[in-house]
């Protein structure tokens, strides 16, 4: 019998068992096929009739050969091996894993949006241009800025775009600047973007409150500082209360303020980056505006700017035309394109739908509830898991397992792994780097009080176990499809393809 893994055995579906799911290649049998194509009535000659033979492959690239039935079984089982917001709480700090309304899926599936070629002329895509203009309007209002580009495909792309805007601004003034200041709590994309933006990173420490150390900032500032990148609330979930002073200090040396909008969910309708003094703001629509994360993307990272930076924005931009309707324009001193087409358009349409459903009050309620949930949880578990900083938090709470480590050698990772067995996705651990044994919980506004209480009870249970049976925690999880994996081996004996794994 032809060797191949059985495509229809469901032992890897957690419903049934805990076996390994074969790869598509292991299930492959030469000659089997799933695909069907339209009848076109066009003759297909041997490729040599169209193309010089020296270009033609002598061997076909081997993919897999499975039946449609096995394809479905395979990916359905894989989906059962995957946690997701739709299954339960995902309190992954900094990621805003809130519920993603299904309505927005419907919007993204509209043929009148999803089946439009990006090169279709503007007069045939007025609906799309209006969507882009409407979203830009809303995002500017929410952030307190003057104009925005919707091209960046994710937060990091937005950061780099923002830094290039900063650079364009300074260069237009003949003002060559060298450095960008970043707090030590910053997300890794911030320093990486600074480098790619052609600047040097100057890291400043956070103070014992978890906030920007204003004195250190003053020390770092100088005429060669192009700007500062901040999140506010910052990555430890705290609001930078001295933001007005900070903005003043940076502006005084001619620098610009960049707002990393990853945490915008906390302040919707409450405060605006523009009002705080920021010049450039990126947003993670996949966080704040609930476009789903897709297992790691797609997202969208629009960048909004104050009026003095609008002329540098990437182009083309959809704009209202003087004669009515909408048109593409490119700003006078545009830095150029940052995306192959118009950005992650369907993600943008989802975000607009989300904003429209919520409206002004709804968005404010989002922030209120997100912050309420985080504070409630923080306080609820304070006795066992102290907050890294003893201040009111915003939409997320950074707790620390340092006492657990000291007492029983139980680490943040152990808590995270054990939580899965209790039916919760792990919080973010070991981020931000400045907090020892950090556990960063972001419940988001879509989790109920009952769920938060259940999480707290699970943490209390785990705490009790840490006292009596720390090994039980080191050993977790046991109920998941796989248990702790050998990460070192993955890196040492790299097998990033079926071929590398020796199964080609």
């Amino acid at each position, binding site marked *: 019998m032809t060797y191949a893994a059985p495509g229809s055995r469901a032992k890897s579906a957690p419903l049934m068992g805990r076996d390994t799911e074969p790869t598509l290649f292991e299930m492959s049998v030469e000659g089997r096929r799933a695909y069907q194509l339209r009848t076109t009535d066009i003759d297909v000659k041997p490729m040599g009739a169209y193309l010089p033979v020296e270009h033609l492959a002598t061997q076909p690239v081997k993919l897999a050969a499975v039946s449609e039935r096995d394809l479905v079984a395979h990916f359905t089982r894989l989906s059962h091996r995957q946690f997701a917001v739709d299954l339960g709480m995902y309190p992954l700090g900094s990621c805003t894993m809130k519920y993603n309304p299904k309505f927005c899926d419907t919007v993204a599936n509209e043929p009148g949006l999803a089946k439009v070629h990006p*090169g279709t002329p503007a007069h045939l895509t007025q609906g799309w241009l209006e969507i882009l203009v409407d979203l830009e309007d809303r995002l500017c209002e929410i952030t307190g800025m003057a104009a925005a580009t919707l091209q960046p495909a994710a937060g990091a792309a937005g950061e780099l775009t923002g830094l290039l805007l900063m650079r364009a601004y300074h260069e237009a003034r003949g003002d060559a600047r060298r450095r960008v200041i970043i707090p030590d709590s910053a997300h890794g994309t911030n320093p990486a973007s600074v480098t790619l933006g052609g600047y040097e990173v100057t890291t400043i420490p956070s103070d014992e409150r978890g906030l920007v150390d204003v004195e250190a900032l003053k020390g770092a500032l100088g005429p060669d500082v192009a700007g500062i990148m901040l999140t506010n609330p910052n990555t430890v979930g705290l609001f930078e209360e001295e933001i007005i002073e900070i903005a003043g200090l940076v502006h005084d040396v001619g620098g610009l303020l960049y707002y990393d909008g990853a945490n915008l969910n906390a302040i919707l309708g409450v405060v605006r980056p523009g009002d705080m003094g920021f010049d450039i703001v990126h947003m993670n629509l996949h966080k704040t505006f609930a476009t789903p994360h897709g297992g790691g993307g797609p997202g969208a990272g629009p960048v909004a700017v104050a009026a003095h930076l609008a002329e540098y924005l990437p182009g083309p931009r959809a704009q209202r035309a003087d004669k009515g309707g909408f048109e593409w324009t490119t700003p006078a001193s545009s830095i150029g394109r940052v995306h192959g087409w118009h950005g992650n358009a369907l993600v943008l349409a989802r975000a607009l739908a989300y904003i429209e459903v919520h409206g002004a009050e709804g968005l404010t309620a989002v922030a209120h509830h997100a912050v309420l949930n985080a504070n409630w949880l923080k306080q609820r578990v304070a006795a066992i898991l102290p907050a890294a900083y003893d201040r009111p938090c915003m939409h997320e709470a950074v707790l620390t397992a340092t006492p657990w480590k000291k007492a029983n050698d139980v680490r943040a990772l152990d808590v995270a792994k054990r939580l899965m067995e209790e039916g919760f996705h792990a919080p973010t651990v070991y981020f931000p780097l400045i907090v020892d044994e950090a556990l960063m919980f972001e419940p988001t506004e879509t989790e109920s009080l009952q769920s938060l209480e259940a999480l707290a009870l699970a943490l209390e249970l785990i705490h009790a176990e840490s006292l009596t049976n720390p090994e039980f925690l080191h050993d977790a999880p046991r109920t998941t499809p796989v*248990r702790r994996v050998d990460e070192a081996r993955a890196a040492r004996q790299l097998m990033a393809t079926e071929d590398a794994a020796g199964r080609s």
Partner: protein
Amino acid sequence: MANYLPHTESEVQEMLAFLGMNSMDDLFAHIPESLRIAGGLNLAPGRSEPDVADQIAHYTSRNKSTNDLVCFAGGGAYDHEVPSVVRALASRSEFVTAYTPYQPEVAQGVLQAIFEYQTMIARLSGLPIANASLYDAATALVEAVNMAAGATKRAKLVISAGVHPHWRQVVRTFARGTGHELVVAPLRDGVTDWSAVNCDGAAAVVASYPNYLGVVEDMAAARHVATASGALFVVGTDPVLASILKTPGTWGADIVVGEGQPFGTPLSYGGPYLGLFACTEEQIRRLPGRLVGETVDVDGRRAFVTTLRAREQDIRREKATSNVCTNQTLMAVGAAIQLGYLGTEGLRDVAERCVAGAHYAADALTSLPGVELAVTAPFGREFALRLPIDASIAIAALADDGILAGLSVAALAGDEDAGVNDPQNVLLVSVTEKRTRREIDAFVVALGKLVK
């Protein structure tokens, strides 16, 4: 107002009381008063989903989709069939609503799908390593030239004018930060003339296979230029044609990038798409984005996990070679499904139909008076057609006949070198496996009425 919030009013009060607070505003009391928005945002009030659906219908009624226009536009975005089965699987909510697989114990679904994706992209590239996706082809090319610059410690990029103009524009934009110098090698009758530029000291030599005008260029020449100058050889590829052409790896590419949209992603007005990225093993420490590797769990069970994390921004920070974090995983999962559906044979069948259809269309269209191929070099699935009239005018006119005739090369190229003379009269026509003889014949008739 939206109804996604669970708390009842009494629960809110209870929770505030637990915090010793009286109102939601108390939660924000530590924020300077002067900053707090007084009257709320100046946005319309929230409306229900059915109401917003009406608003969406207002937008869609003013877009022409492939339901309205038979699509001959390509240029990196292709109207391929996305079968029901692929849509159904790729839209499973476990894939859609997961985050990056940080906790492998409960993320084997996405991890294994990405592993399979990496395998397929590596094979199509002819290179051993493919990452877990980048934003799109244009930004993937930026990562590629950054990788080359890092590897060679050089700053000069030699790019063929056959590389998609938008990709070149994006490379140009990001070069503002990295300081890379761009040199564009011109086309002669659709084929790159590497001798026209000085490649000495180049970090990367970037070619496109086929190029943006559809031409299947000589990769040996490009590889030779790269080798001679000590540059890495970067190839932008059409992953569909990669099933019938020699792989870029066979031609000696060090880095391969491409647009993965043809693999299961709808046209989507240009995004979200899928940036393909593959490279040699030598470059792996500079690989941008995520990489999934195989390993075992504590019970010895096969498991997948993101690996070589030390390359990435969250660990390496300002020394990282790339800042990418969120990428396009869902599209990569969709591509794995689509490629699983097509298989070896199906992908080749699709590619062959594209090529045959394009040649059928080219023959038929050039039979019209004053219509000719803008370049005579051999092409694959798309071709540049010189019209006796402005291509934009032709596109607008044919839309009335229910046809999206193609892309205007002048519009596509913008400020970049279009690689052809008088680009405003050049129409870039693409044919996918979906296009029937009847549709092509109708296109010919409609264009015939216009140019006669």
